[in-house]
């Protein structure tokens, strides 16, 4: 192959969302020469879209809050499947990560006494989400972006070159991780760098680095109705698989209960949970607040029994229970699905979400400015005067790359780290709102820190990239130009989205998932023949043709794992296995690339039992709902 542009770094971070930027800041602060690579312009990553807030038990609004309560809520939300060590670190470190943002210039909304204000959100016992109106993600990304600029200004002073130690390579897509076999283990690999192309010119670029942090976000573009952007094609998950890492918990996909349903072109766009956190209620076409009929047994004691009690909770949370509109997302999404199915939906197939009858117009405009704007501009709906129509939308993937909870290192691939939505484990079977932004910062920082530590220890023992791999990656990337128009990548993508939406969606059945796997095989064959026209300069058809590989691999993981798990839990609902099973809680499904390279193998793993001091944070009665008898802590003398 011809000469390829090359850059050499200590740490390469793939992804410029919250997780990637925080990782890069850390790696650079540890003295590493660091590169950030991202598909969009710097500052446009998906994180920018986050609305509601960032969860951290600072206790500014309710001083009863602390990390233990946050930990407990996170485990409950994830139905105890979470990697508890990640949930623990997350709850402990989130407040520091939020406060640190203030020192970099973030301006959160304030409490009366001048501290960071915190709002209620589904599944969080106390008001816990630091926020800026409903544009928290923008604040987060801008703050991190500006911190990176600050670091670059330091380098400008010191070296006369702002990019001496930290450079952002924007609008570049990585298509392969480069590895060499790791001499220290049987079948392990070791990172040597990454291969990609510039979106602008279509030219190839190689990053040589002993450590790579994957922070590429989620997979929503495999589904038809989604709140996710074009970037969410499962790249990081696929890159990790192809390099020899495993994905865990891929059956758990979060369908956010409230996406826009009309007009068709905006179907799926998110309506933030803050609407409910701030008082909005859900009604069916008969005007009924149906959520009261859908409180599951595990949560019976924690939610209001009547509308009156639920309404009182907003002003007097200590003496009342919260309204069921604020149940975890999986519960609300299933309820909406059921209402619509039983014929009590709105004209456009959703349910009503109403704040107009609950809050004065000026309060709505102040607390939910971007929702007000979004509905007005895109749907001609004034949310201060009429209800919104909403329905479930594919929003977040709980599953992801298997990582070590403390260091974010991926077992099996030395030098590979993963953080943010692309990593699995932290959220178990269902993520609580606000727990992603905090996850990005806590584990982004850890990934950067431990990647730096690894590189430092490695010293001079770096390995060169293998030219053969570069040639293969280049050949793979140009292949679609040889397939002259055989298959239209856009059509293959649309069919993939329809398949996943219809057959591996919010409610799942064995026969349908088996059917999905058959169709995925057909689509794989068609994707291999996807052809593109034109040249390599900024060619979206080509980009999509390359993304198909990733979406198909990840979709296969989701479908296989979902077919295997014969129970319902969090973001995985089986109509044919409606109950939650304590035995299945002890099973983590891991996906790895099969030896033939084209398929996914499923392996069962047993999660480590939770530490006793963490178990002790829960009542024994509550634990009984989740754990097998053998796992329960010994009964105390004299207790009931």
């Amino acid at each position: 192959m011809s000469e390829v542009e090359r850059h050499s770094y200590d740490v390469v971070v793939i992804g410029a969302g919250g997780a990637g930027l925080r990782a890069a800041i850390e790696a650079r602060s540890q003295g590493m020469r660091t590169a950030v690579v991202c598909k969009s312009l710097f500052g446009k990553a998906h994180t920018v879209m986050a609305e509601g807030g960032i969860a951290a038990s600072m206790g500014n609004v309710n001083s009863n809050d602390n990390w233990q309560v946050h930990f407990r809520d996170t485990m409950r939300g994830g139905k105890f499947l979470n990697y508890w060590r990640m949930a623990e670190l997350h709850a402990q470190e989130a407040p520091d990560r939020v406060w640190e943002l203030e020192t970099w210039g973030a301006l959160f909304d304030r409490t009366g006494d001048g501290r960071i204000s915190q709002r209620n959100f589904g599944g969080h016992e106390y008001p816990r989400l630091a926020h800026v109106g409903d544009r928290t993600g923008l604040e987060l990304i801008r703050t991190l972006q500006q911190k990176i600029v600050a670091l670059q200004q330091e380098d400008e002073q010191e070296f006369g070159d702002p990019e001496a130690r930290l450079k952002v390579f924007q609008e570049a897509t990585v298509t392969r991780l480069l590895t060499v076999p790791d001499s220290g283990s049987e079948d392990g690999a070791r990172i040597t760098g990454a291969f990609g192309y510039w979106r602008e010119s279509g030219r190839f670029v190689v990053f040589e680095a002993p450590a790579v942090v994957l922070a590429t976000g989620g997979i929503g573009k495999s589904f038809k109705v989604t709140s996710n952007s074009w970037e969410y094609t499962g790249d990081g998950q696929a890159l990790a698989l192809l390099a020899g890492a495993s994905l865990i918990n891929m059956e758990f996909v979060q369908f956010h209960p409230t996406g826009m349903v009309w007009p068709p072109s905006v179907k799926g766009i998110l309506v933030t949970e803050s609407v409910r956190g701030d008082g909005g209620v859900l009604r069916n076409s008969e005007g009924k607040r149906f959520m009261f009929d859908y409180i599951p047994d595990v949560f019976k004691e924690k939610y209001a029994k009547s509308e009156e009690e639920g309404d009182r909770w907003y002003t007097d949370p200590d003496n009342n229970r919260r309204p069921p509109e604020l149940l975890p997302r999986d519960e609300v999404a299933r309820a909406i699905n059921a209402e619509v199915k039983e014929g009590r939906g709105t004209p456009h197939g959703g349910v009503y979400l109403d704040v107009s009858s609950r809050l004065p117009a000026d309060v709505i405009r102040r607390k939910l400015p971007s929702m007000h704007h979004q509905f007005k501009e895109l749907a001609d709906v004034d949310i201060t005067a009429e209800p919104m129509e909403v329905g479930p939308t594919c929003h977040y993937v709980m599953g992801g790359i298997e990582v070590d909870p403390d260091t974010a290192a991926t077992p099996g691939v030395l030098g590979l780290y993963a953080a943010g939505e692309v990593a699995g484990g932290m959220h178990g079977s269902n993520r609580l709102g606000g727990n992603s932004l905090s996850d990005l910062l806590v584990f982004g920082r850890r990934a950067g820190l431990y990647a730096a530590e690894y590189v430092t220890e490695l010293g001079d023992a770096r390995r060169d990239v293998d030219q053969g791999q570069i040639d293969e990656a280049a050949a793979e990337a140009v292949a679609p130009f040889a397939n002259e128009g055989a298959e239209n990548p856009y059509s293959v993508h649309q069919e993939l989205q329809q398949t996943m939406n219809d057959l591996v969606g919010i409610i799942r059945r064995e026969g349908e998932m088996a059917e999905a796997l058959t169709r995925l095989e057909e689509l794989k064959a068609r994707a291999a023949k996807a052809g593109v026209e034109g040249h390599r300069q900024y060619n979206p058809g080509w980009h999509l043709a390359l993304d198909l590989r990733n979406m198909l691999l990840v979709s296969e993981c989701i479908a296989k794992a979902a077919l295997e798990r014969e129970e319902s839990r969090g973001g995985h609902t089986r109509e044919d296995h409606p109950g939650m099973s304590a035995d299945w809680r002890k099973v983590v499904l891991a996906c790895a690339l099969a030896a033939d390279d084209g398929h996914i193998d499923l392996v069962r793993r047993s999660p480590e039992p939770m530490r006793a001091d963490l178990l002790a944070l829960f009542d024994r009665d509550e634990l009984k709902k989740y754990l097998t008898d053998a796992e329960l802590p010994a009964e105390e003398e004299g207790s009931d």
Partner: protein
Amino acid sequence: MSYKANFRVWRGDVDSGELRDYTVEVNEGEVVLDIIHRLQATQAPDLAVRWNCKAGKCGSCSAEINGRPRLLCMTRMSTFSQEETITVTPMRTFPVIRDLVTDVSFNYAKARKVPSFTPPEGLKAGEYRMQQVDVERSQEFRKCIECYLCQNTCHVIRDFEDNKEAFSGPRYLMRIAELDMHPLDVADRQKAAQDEHGLGYCNITKCCTEVCPEHIKITDNALIPMKERVADRKYDPIVWLGDKIRRRK
């Protein structure tokens, strides 16, 4: 309810380009970006356009529609008549890369010239105290999604390429105002606004404000107050210090 619309889209690169005509289906409720995507999927697979959120939150999809700077994802087709030919061109102030995609690196370069937030020495993380009323001014400016439509519109650089060196544009003058109005920022920013970022070039025409999709009152709330601050102080260090101390209590 669907109909065929006439679109005229600029196709080309740095070297050459032309407006090309397309007839394309439009359905109820769609925005211009939907139509561009339909063109990609059916007639022009290599048509280059930037977008991310499709909800007016990321500021990627800026272009000019019938000559007016707009976000493609927030411009509804229902604002045009069915007979009208809709012309979509790239932002004019920045060099074109291909089709609707422009080189916006000017903005990143200017961003790097604004010294970052400078908190008081010794103030620890977790100890920041600010009142809501005091942060609101800067919060308005932090709503900016960096779509660069204001930068594209401001005649100081739209019509005079040579000014790009001396003038940072409304977005970054507003960034300076944001930091200057931050209750805890201790750096002196007013002199630099004038001397290094070209605040004096702005003749408060408000064209930037008019195109801001976030409805930020750039001119009234950021640029004019900055001009006043600069004029008032005339860089008298005693005046400046006194002001900071008063604002911080």
